[in-house]
């Protein structure tokens, strides 16, 4: 009886788990467009160092996790160049940046969220 009860619980749990998105960006992000490239020094960090197209930029945020800036401060590299563009979050127009170090941010209506991607090496190759 106990085994049957656990089995029912497991069956109930599987669909819930399978529907959980990787992060909240999965649900909300759309219309991601790359618009520009910025660098502090073209010799150190070039357009080819962060050469993502629209789909790849969207992929970056889908694969990323949202973090507090303190996590970036402690554990991630900051690159001197980035691409930037626009996207929609819940149908609201926002600005985004993706650095050559696979650190990103989305700025929406005065709020700034940071993202890091540990599985995006292919996007920067």
């Amino acid at each position, binding site marked *: 009886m106990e085994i049957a009860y656990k089995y029912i619980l497991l069956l109930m749990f599987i669909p819930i788990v399978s529907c959980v998105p990787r992060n909240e960006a999965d649900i909300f992000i759309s219309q991601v467009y790359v618009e520009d490239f910025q660098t502090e020094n073209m010799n150190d960090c070039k357009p080819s160092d962060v050469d993502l197209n629209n789909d790849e930029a969207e992929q970056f945020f889908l694969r990323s996790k949202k973090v507090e800036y303190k996590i970036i401060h402690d*554990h991630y590299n900051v690159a001197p160049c980035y691409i930037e563009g626009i996207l929609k979050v819940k149908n609201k127009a926002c600005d985004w940046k993706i650095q050559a170090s696979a650190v990103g941010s989305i700025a929406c209506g005065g709020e700034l969220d940071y993202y890091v991607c540990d599985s995006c090496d292919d996007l920067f190759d």
Partner: protein
Amino acid sequence: MSKINKGSTIDKDGMLIDAKVKLKRYKTIEHGKLPSVEAILVHQTDAPTAQHTFNAYNAGGNGAHFLIAKNGDIYQTASLSKRCYHVGRLIKSKCLTLNKANCKSPAMTKILAMRWGGMIKALDTHERTKTYPNRYPVNSDSVGIELVGKHIDDKTYEKVTAKQNSSLQWLVTELNKHFSVGASDIYRHPAVSYKNPGEASSAKWK
């Protein structure tokens, strides 16, 4: 134990003994022995108060040997004979930064042709074959000093207070006496690894 005339001492546990230093050691941020002290790195915490950093240190992980609060209070948070994770995994190339002309070699040419992500890893590997001071300091030959202060944006941190700078100057002077670390051996964190360029930019120690 070393002793400096009319100044601070370092006890057998690697703690700096002086009335100006509050001992608040967190073994949770110590990671093995610190074989030598060749350099000092100046950081900012990205936290609003010292207590925020103490709370984080309680949980363990990254940290530095000293913390200077906004009111100038100096805390020693790790032993000077223990290593802390404060530099970052990848160090920059010192010769590329300071003397690019003297940095040329076939290996360096190959590295610089790489994309940024691969380049910074290859540079780190290349640099770690050198000894200090021919490369930037790493965790195993440097002491870290944290100044309480939040980041503001991608290029800026809170300004370091006058009291923090005064305490930093005193602390650096004392550490210089104990470890013979010269003015050229003191670095802001972003000079050494790939960090927000605003971190510790308003810190002054001379």
